[in-house]
């Protein structure tokens, strides 16, 4: 491992920028993501910052069951994020559609059909600790040694 890579790993591990996008949810999961920012869970102590701008983001949190209004738009948001990047599905909705996935409904889950998903957090809604763990795990699995693995 080069020294440059080592420095990059070190810096990246303490500077994860997160954007979130709600593609049609009940807002339960949005509230849990919001709770991560509160002092009780305090995600900034892990070096995770929420900007909600895809151009600055490393991790995209996808919430919701993918309603027709998001066709093309979600992929557009995903493409705007510079490499290295990872998307995390938050809640049952992006995994299975949860309670919205009924006969004749318009939602089109799972979200991994539309953009690549690096981690999934099941739960309706998942707990803030679980969301935090998922972000920290993609940090270690996707961002570490990124340049060496993608020459």
């Amino acid at each position: 491992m080069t020294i440059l890579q080592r420095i990059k790993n070190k810096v990246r591990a303490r500077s994860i920028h997160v954007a979130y996008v709600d593609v049609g949810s009940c807002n339960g999961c949005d509230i849990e993501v919001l709770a991560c920012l509160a002092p009780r869970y305090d995600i900034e102590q892990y070096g995770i910052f929420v900007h909600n701008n895809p151009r600055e983001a490393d991790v995209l949190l996808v919430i919701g069951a993918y309603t027709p209004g998001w066709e093309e738009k979600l992929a557009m948001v995903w493409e705007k994020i510079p490499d290295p990047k990872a998307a995390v599905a938050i809640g049952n909705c992006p995994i299975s559609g949860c309670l919205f996935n009924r006969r004749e409904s318009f939602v089109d889950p799972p979200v991994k059909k539309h953009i690549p998903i690096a981690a999934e957090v099941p739960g309706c809604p998942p707990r803030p600790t679980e969301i935090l763990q998922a972000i920290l795990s993609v940090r270690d699995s996707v961002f570490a040694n990124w340049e060496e693995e993608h020459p």
Partner: protein
Amino acid sequence: MGQSLIWYLKEFARIEWIKKFLFAKTAPLVTPSYFRGFPEPTGKICQNALFCMMVCPAPGAIEVVHDEDGWIPRIHKGHCIRCGFCVEACPNGILKSGRILETKEREGTSLLFSFRIAIDLELCTGCGNCCTACPVNKVIDAQMGAGGHSSNDEVIMRVQEGDIVVIHEDKCTGCKTCEVSCPTGAIRIARILEGYQQPVQEESQ
């Protein structure tokens, strides 16, 4: 002026404060054991009563499958919403989650299932298939003939003078065998679920 500046610097450059600023962390967050997680098996033997599947509100969350050790409910993460209804509904206590089982025991709560038999007499031809197919009827009156006639008053339903008559709706177990066997789709079984709490015993004076 100079002195007070030094005083301020000294006051704010306390080692504990700097340590706190650089290294403070909230205590590691552990999920308390009483939080409802995804239901887990307790190791008791599943009787395939399927109450868990009947009560589950989330599509595709639970399925009772047969593996080499017998029946076992399988919870699908990504579908399950951790409501804990399956834990509460299971009469054999084979699932656990948080402190639901303890609470159920302490408070004497349970979920009661009952079934209503609805027969559309416009569609019913009085063939008696449902009466002979019903496994409960078979146990009560093994002699019941092909026409669904029976002289036993304890059966769930029987055919009398060409018409179907429901006598003991309360004995229905909700298996829906009758629905499948009916050639015209006249018979329907509805499940009714109610919460129940055992009345508190009055303290004797």
